[in-house]
């Protein structure tokens, strides 16, 4: 506490003197050195819930919410301390060694990880609060909170990683717990398939992560990010090995990021991940899991930005991001499942973040990640609330929920406006910053020949993306909350435990964009810029008015057209419900046939021969070995049987028979007649005496 006050005081002094000058980075004192609690507490708590959850008064939810409350508080405390006085410090504890390279567990406390601690803690807290209401009466209630806590904990292990190894550990923890959560209702085959699909798609990308991590770590000779980024900072001439393989390493790492952050064409798992309970979708799409890829690129950002290293990869990143944001946004237009609309919307927004990263805008990308986490969590929770009331995921079963569910409606509208990028909601500022950065890049992009025109195309796609976003969100709001109710029964507002988190998330969704107004409040820029190795990104000092107007106009146009098509009165409702966008509809309905391509083009051609090969191996090789072993065992058995019957039993029976026969013969001597005994004694005496006489 004293430490906190001291830091705050120092910060006050610093602001009075300094202003925007680069402040000295502090090691954060006790608050940072105890930050190992952030990843450890939820991991321990997950096991505590497994073993003791059922005995707790709220069946394990109480442990989970206490942990998330702790995370939110600790994250906020670190955030405030960091804003007051930037903290950048790594803590490393050696736990093993590979050759000369130590494997360390540690915790990074710098701008990037503090931002993620705060995000996971605060968004997670609201989602866990909401989950109590949503999961009420679930058959695996306690287990759900155990795996959910593990999920949050895995993400915290990932973001606290100061080295590649821990990052991979956290990466896989998130992967496995997402598998548990997506397949939470595994009784339905579709849900367990979705879980497996998420796992396998991520595994494909993980190969890239591993390859990239190995190349980078081996060329630098250390798993630590600080060592890797120091090597980058010293320049290509000082780190020739890393520079030589930088393109491939950067590309491989980005492929890893494409899996977790669901970039085109590895995005297919994310919409299917809707099979999990809504709180899972909410957290997965907001603060954890999908942010991991963007986080990884952010962590390695100097590597992608410094001349002589992986700068060429940035054109790949920006293309992938632009494709993702545009193509998946279009799919969201034709979805009927409200959660799928939001899922494709997440993909689209992740595309924005990735495109921003590719354009070299570290702050803009992470700022969109930050604001998006709040409003996307809010939208998912709102959608969950509607689903809870209607008992259907389909918007064709909803409609007219506005009057029955006021809290859900208004918070959902705030979230939608934030997502659509309407001033002054959070998404407006972050999206505008991305557009401005991409436009800046279109002037400055010196990555490859024609880089400038590439960024111009991306800019067009990004502005169209803003239009599409507003369009499908208008559609969702009108179809869900306006018009006539089309479902069964009568919907009711969700219980208080569910709408309080909605309000709690609606507030930051509305106002959090104000923390990074270009040229005015630069809190977020300083926040994520507070790192040991300075991140030299482009950051606009003032609004790019053209982009601001273009983005806003696209969003307003999207909302207007959405209202024209789906908004009007009830007479036209049947026509609206059956409205299909011409030409594009079949393509979008089938999601560009990507899933079909993977299934028919990749999985089946591989699966068939593999299955046949395995069958052949099984039938001929394994069975041969097993049958051979069986036959051998049988013949050995026969020998042993013979030996047992004839040898061992024979010996035992023979000894019995001999004893019996001997007894029978000796029995004859036992006549009971004294004189016979006397004869024997006498005869024996005579023989013995005779023997003695002869002997001597």
């Amino acid at each position, binding site marked *: 506490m004293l430490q906190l006050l001291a830091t705050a005081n120092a910060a006050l002094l610093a602001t009075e003197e300094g202003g925007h000058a680069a402040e000295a980075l502090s090691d954060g004192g006790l608050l940072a050195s105890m930050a190992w609690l952030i990843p450890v507490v939820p991991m321990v708590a997950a096991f505590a819930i497994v073993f003791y959850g059922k005995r707790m008064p709220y069946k394990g939810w109480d442990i989970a919410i206490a942990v998330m409350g702790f995370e939110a508080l600790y994250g906020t405390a670190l955030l405030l301390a960091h804003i007051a006085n930037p903290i950048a410090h790594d803590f490393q504890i050696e736990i093993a060694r590979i050759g000369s390279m130590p494997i360390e567990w540690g915790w990074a406390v710098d701008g990037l990880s503090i931002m993620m601690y705060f995000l996971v803690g605060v968004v997670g807290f609201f989602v866990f609060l909401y989950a109590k209401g949503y999961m009420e009466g679930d058959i695996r209630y306690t287990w759900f909170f155990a795996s959910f806590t593990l999920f949050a904990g895995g993400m915290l292990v990932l973001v606290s990683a100061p080295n590649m190894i821990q990052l991979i550990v956290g990466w896989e923890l998130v992967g496995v717990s997402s598998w548990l959560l997506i397949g939470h209702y595994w009784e339905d085959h579709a849900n367990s398939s979705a879980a497996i699909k998420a796992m396998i798609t991520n595994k494909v990308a993980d190969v890239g992560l591993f390859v990239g991590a190995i190349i980078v770590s081996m060329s630098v000779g250390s798993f630590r990010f600080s060592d890797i980024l120091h090597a980058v900072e010293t320049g290509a001439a000082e780190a020739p090995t890393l520079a030589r393989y930088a393109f491939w390493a950067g590309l491989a790492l980005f492929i890893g990021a494409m899996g977790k952050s669901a970039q085109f064409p590895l995005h297919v798992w994310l919409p299917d991940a809707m099979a999990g309970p809504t709180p899972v979708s909410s957290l997965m799409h907001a603060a954890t899991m999908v942010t991991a890829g963007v986080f990884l690129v952010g962590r390695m950002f100097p590597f992608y930005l410094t001349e002589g290293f992986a700068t060429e990869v940035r054109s790949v990143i920006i293309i992938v991001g632009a494709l993702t944001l545009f193509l998946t946004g279009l799919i969201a237009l034709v979805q009927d499942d409200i959660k799928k609309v939001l899922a494709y919307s997440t993909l689209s927004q992740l595309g924005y973040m990735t495109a921003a990263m590719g354009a070299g805008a570290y702050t803009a990308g992470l700022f969109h990640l930050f604001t998006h986490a709040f409003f996307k969590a809010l939208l998912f929770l709102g959608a969950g609330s509607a689903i809870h009331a209607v008992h259907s995921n389909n918007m064709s079963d909803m409609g007219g929920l506005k009057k029955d569910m006021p809290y859900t409606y208004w918070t959902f509208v705030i979230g939608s406006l934030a997502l659509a990028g309407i001033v002054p909601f959070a998404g407006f500022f972050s999206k505008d910053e991305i557009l401005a950065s991409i436009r800046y890049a279109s002037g400055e992009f010196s990555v490859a020949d024609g880089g400038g025109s590439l960024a111009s195309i991306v800019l067009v796609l990004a502005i169209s993306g803003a239009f599409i976003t507003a369009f499908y969100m208008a559609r969702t709001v009108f179809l869900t909350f306006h018009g006539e109710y089309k479902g069964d029964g009568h919907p009711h507002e969700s219980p208080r435990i569910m709408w309080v988190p909605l309000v709690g998330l609606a507030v930051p969704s509305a106002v959090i964009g104000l923390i990074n107004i270009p040229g005015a409040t630069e809190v977020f820029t300083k926040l994520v810029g507070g790192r040991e190795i300075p991140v030299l990104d482009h950051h606009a000092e003032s609004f790019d008015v053209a982009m601001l107007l273009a983005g806003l106009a696209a969003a307003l146009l999207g909302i207007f057209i959405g209202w024209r098509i789906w908004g009007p009165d009830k007479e036209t409702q049947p026509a609206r419900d059956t409205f299909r966008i011409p030409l594009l509809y079949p393509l979008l309905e089938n999601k560009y046939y990507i899933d079909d391509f993977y299934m028919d083009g990749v999985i089946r051609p591989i699966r068939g021969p593999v299955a046949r090969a395995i069958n052949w191996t099984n039938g001929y090789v394994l069975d041969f070995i097993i049958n051979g072993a069986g036959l051998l065992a049988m013949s050995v058995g026969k020998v042993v049987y013979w030996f047992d019957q004839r040898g061992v039993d024979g010996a035992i029976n023979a000894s019995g028979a001999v004893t019996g026969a001997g007894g029978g013969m000796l029995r004859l001597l036992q*006549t*009971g007649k*004294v*004189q016979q*005994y006397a004869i024997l004694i*006498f005869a024996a005496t005579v023989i013995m005496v005779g023997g003695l006489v002869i002997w001597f």
Partner: protein
Amino acid sequence: MILGQFIILGAALFSLGVYGVLTRRNAVLVLLSVELMLAAVNINFVAFDTYARDAVAGGQIFSLFVIAVGAAEVGIGLAIILLIFRNRQSANVDELDLMKL
């Protein structure tokens, strides 16, 4: 050679006793034959004592012991035979096969 004659007499008498013990059916006669064997042993004692000119006449004294013990033995033996006879109305050793299992 006077010793040889005595030894032969002792041996003959002993053999007669052994034969009697092994062949007689009547318990009294068996006892009588045991007495013959004792007498044969006494003859040997006395003969060897004389032959060795023993100063303390150990052989003769021992033969007197044997006579005394033999008398006691006959007393006990006859008493046992009497009791057996009373119980079974027979002194035939062949019928005394209670030792048979």
